[in-house]
């Protein structure tokens, strides 16, 4: 790659050399000069020059120019407000105009103290008002969704939010209506702003117009601490800041990892944190007493009971992992059970494979692709939301998005990226094989992603494998079932397994899930309460930070104590456990070296994984005329989301998605009631025709599928009844 041509630009009295075509705002920054902006945000596409905050004087141009719309040219001479009276006047004028209708809300506005309008007014704006007439007033705040409030009086119509809705998430729901000074930001009629990414507008908004409802009146910037950590709710692992006040998480903000999330986070990651304070959050262990049901016991008693159960089941303990444990938790638990109790059998909800290690890419590489092949029938946005944004960004950048590797565009393209979005996929082995067939290894900008279902499936599997070298022996009966994590506790298959087990210990945050069938419930922590590491779907190791103290001890603490009882040495804190794992899996880096914005390292030392029977690969191509049902786990589902009132409106409707062709053949239109059945069981629900869905596939949210799977019969409801 050739070095870009450098150009010389004069900004005020400073000279700077930048690559030709660099935006003027960045050029000024390189010279240490601020050009104030509101509407400018490179992630939203081409600059629009709407707000007029960035007015600068450019030699050779008669009028003031919007700096954000200019790029560095050789010999350019720019004067900002610092050295140009004209520019200073212009910027002052912009702020005066903005403030003409802006309400004096600072004392009651959450944005106060972290507000660009306040800051820029102090720096560039007028000190008083000359406006003596009536300001524009509106009913306020308006909930545009249960999670976002809109205050039209504060809105400065910078259009960042509408540009996000149009050109990033592409949902086209948040729009500007009317014209001129009557312009307002709104959704359609009374419909809420619904989608996976809506909350990003609250970070984009430079004033207190779009604010998270959960954070309303919750704190002032000088009362809070932002703790950097990583989201643990999906395998993307977006970098976030948890805003903490008085020991409670009050808000989640993006921390912007340019390679992973580019500053966007999904609404689940943003708004689900209140699950930490759910009503049924466990603080004390619960032990089943005969005839009394579950009763609270002390930790001392709980660990004694756990020890007893473990001893009785030596060699016959089966562990079910959720894939949301940290690497350290999985390792510690593994060491306790494999080394201490000779029980090597563990189950993950999905297969994990190291096959993709040869095709590793950062997510940001998707944008640079010529072709992105999206395989599988689970919508990317439900599995790994931010990946969906990267794919859209790639399309806007000129990439072709196709749905099979035989598309001629694939052979012609230089940069090819494959994305597998379930079901199945052998933990990445399937898409790795495709990548191999296409010869993508070693080719620049080429790679493959397998969108896992679990946030840390890879990390957990590696950790479990690394803690002991012995082979796993499959026991003929389950002496003790250890269920780790709420996802596993909520799984019906796991519950069925528990019925076969002689005893069950469950590690979970919430009491309700295992109340009916666990013998001992140990309270668990959430990802916001843990120090530890996760491995995301890129294969990137990232560092989580404890943002608040959990209401119960950290898992490592009591696992360490329990392990000691069996003569196994496990450090009671993350850094210590990580040191051991790192030796074996991560090339020996220390906990502190993992990094605030972790780079994508490979880890060649990773061993083979949890040995298990490969799941039968779901048939990919349905036969002609057949319909295969894909029941997917929606983004807005799971124990955490279920406990967040504000997110209930995002839960998926009970509906069956059908392709246009299949619908037409059955004379089904959107809204019609249909019956879906297979093997004697059937459900009835409304249909929705999705023109983008391929023929032969029908989709339904897992929670509405009622156990249906595989090839199904679909017909209009009244027809079935009459038949």
């Amino acid at each position: 790659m050739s070095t870009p041509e450098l150009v010389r630009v004069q900004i005020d009295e400073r000279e700077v050399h930048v690559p030709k075509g660099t935006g003027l705002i960045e050029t000024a920054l390189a010279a240490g000069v601020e050009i104030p902006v509101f509407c400018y945000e490179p992630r939203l596409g081409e600059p629009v020059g709407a707000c007029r905050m960035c007015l600068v004087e450019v030699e050779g141009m008669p009028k003031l120019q919007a700096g954000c719309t200019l790029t560095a040219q050789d010999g350019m001479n720019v004067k900002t407000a610092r050295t140009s009276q004209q520019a200073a006047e212009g910027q002052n004028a912009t702020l005066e105009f903005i403030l003409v209708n802006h309400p004096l809300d600072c004392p009651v506005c959450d944005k106060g103290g972290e507000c660009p309008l306040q800051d820029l007014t102090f720096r560039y704006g007028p000190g008083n008002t000359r406006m003596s007439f009536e300001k524009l007033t509106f009913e306020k705040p308006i909930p545009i969704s249960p999670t976002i409030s809109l205050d039209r009086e504060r809105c400065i119509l910078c259009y960042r939010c509408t540009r996000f809705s149009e050109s990033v998430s592409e949902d086209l729901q948040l729009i500007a209506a009317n014209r001129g000074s009557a312009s307002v930001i709104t959704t359609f009629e009374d419909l809420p702003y619904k989608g996976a990414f809506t909350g990003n507008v609250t970070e984009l908004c430079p004033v207190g117009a779009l604010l998270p409802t959960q954070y309303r009146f919750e704190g002032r910037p000088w009362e809070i601490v932002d703790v950097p950590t990583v989201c643990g709710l999906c395998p993307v692992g977006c970098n976030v800041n948890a805003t903490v006040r008085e020991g409670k998480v009050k808000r989640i903000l993006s921390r912007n990892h340019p390679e992973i999330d580019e500053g966007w986070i999904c609404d689940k990651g943003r708004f689900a944190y209140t699950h930490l304070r759910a009503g049924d959050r466990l603080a004390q262990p619960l032990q089943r007493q005969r005839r009394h049901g579950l009763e609270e016991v002390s930790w001392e008693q709980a660990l004694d009971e756990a020890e007893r159960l473990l001893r009785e089941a030596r060699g016959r303990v089966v562990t079910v992992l959720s894939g949301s444990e940290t690497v350290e938790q999985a390792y510690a638990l593994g060491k306790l059970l494999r080394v201490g109790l000779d029980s090597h059998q563990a189950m993950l909800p999905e297969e994990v494979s190291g096959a993709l290690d040869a095709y590793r890419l950062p997510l940001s590489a998707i944008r640079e692709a010529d072709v992105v092949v999206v395989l599988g029938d689970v919508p990317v946005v439900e599995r790994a939301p931010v990946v969906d944004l990267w794919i859209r960004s790639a399309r806007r950048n000129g990439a072709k998005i196709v749905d099979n590797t035989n598309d001629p565009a694939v052979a012609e393209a230089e940069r090819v990226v494959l994305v597998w979005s379930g079901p199945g996929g052998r933990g990445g082995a399937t898409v790795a094989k495709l990548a191999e067939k296409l010869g993508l290894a070693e080719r620049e900008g080429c790679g493959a992603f397998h969108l896992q279902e679990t946030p840390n499936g890879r990390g957990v599997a590696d950790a479990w494998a690394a803690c002991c070298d012995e082979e796993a022996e499959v026991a003929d009966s389950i002496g003790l079932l250890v269920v780790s994590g709420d996802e596993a506790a909520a799984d019906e298959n796991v519950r069925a397994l528990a019925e076969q087990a002689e005893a069950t210990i469950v590690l979970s945050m919430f009491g309700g899930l295992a109340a009916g069938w666990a013998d001992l419930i140990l309270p668990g922590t959430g990802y916001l309460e843990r120090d530890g590491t996760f491995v995301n779907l890129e294969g990137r190791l990232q560092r989580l930070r404890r943002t608040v103290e959990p209401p119960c001890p950290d898992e490592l603490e009591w696992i360490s104590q329990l392990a000691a009882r069996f003569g196994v040495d496990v450090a009671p804190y993350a850094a210590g456990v990580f040191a051991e794992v790192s030796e074996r899996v991560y090339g020996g880096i220390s906990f502190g070296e993992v990094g605030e914005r972790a780079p994508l390292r490979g880890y060649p030392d990773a061993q083979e994984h949890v040995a298990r029977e490969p799941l039968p690969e779901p048939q990919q191509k349905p036969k002609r005329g057949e319909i295969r049902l894909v029941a997917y786990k929606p983004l807005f589902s799971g124990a955490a989301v279920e406990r967040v009132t504000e997110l209930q409106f995002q839960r998926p409707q009970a509906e069956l998605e059908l392709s246009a062709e299949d619908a037409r053949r059955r004379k089904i239109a959107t809204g019609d009631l249909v019956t879906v059945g297979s093997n004697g069981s059937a459900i009835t629900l409304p249909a929705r025709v999705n023109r983008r869905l391929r023929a032969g596939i029908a989709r339904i949210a897992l929670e509405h599928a009622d156990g249906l799977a595989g090839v199904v019969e679909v017909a209009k409801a009244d027809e079935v009844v009459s038949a």
Partner: protein
Amino acid sequence: MTSFYDEVQELRARYPEGTRSAILPALRLAQEKHGWLSRRALEETAEALELTPAYCYSVASFYDMLHVEPIGQHTIEVCTNVCCGLVNAQAVLDAFEQELGVGPGETTDDGEITLRAVECLGGCSTPTIVAVDHRYRQSVTPEDVPSIVADVRGG
């Protein structure tokens, strides 16, 4: 008889594929069909264009001739800009207000006629211009008003 959906596809075919250019003619068509751009009208239009109702509302509400509020079967639009204003625009508007019993921006109780003041219609040398159902009447005087209204009412 072609459906609205099909008619919109025909409109789309006039412009390059993947563009949204058909939205203005589609909204005009929807407005003719529904009387105004109601929720239903916008949903139908969005469906036919593969866009969202919100987007259609965003575009429609920008333009003066597209109505996102109910409007009468007929419109009487009086230019009240400078050139017509210099001669007799306000007198003509007042005369319509008198004759119809509604003010500018309002619709008669029977839902028949909406009276509106509009900006320059491009007939400045023959003031006052009145657009009756978008057809121009030139050199309108207050004396012409009763017959114009009778015309509209008569169908």
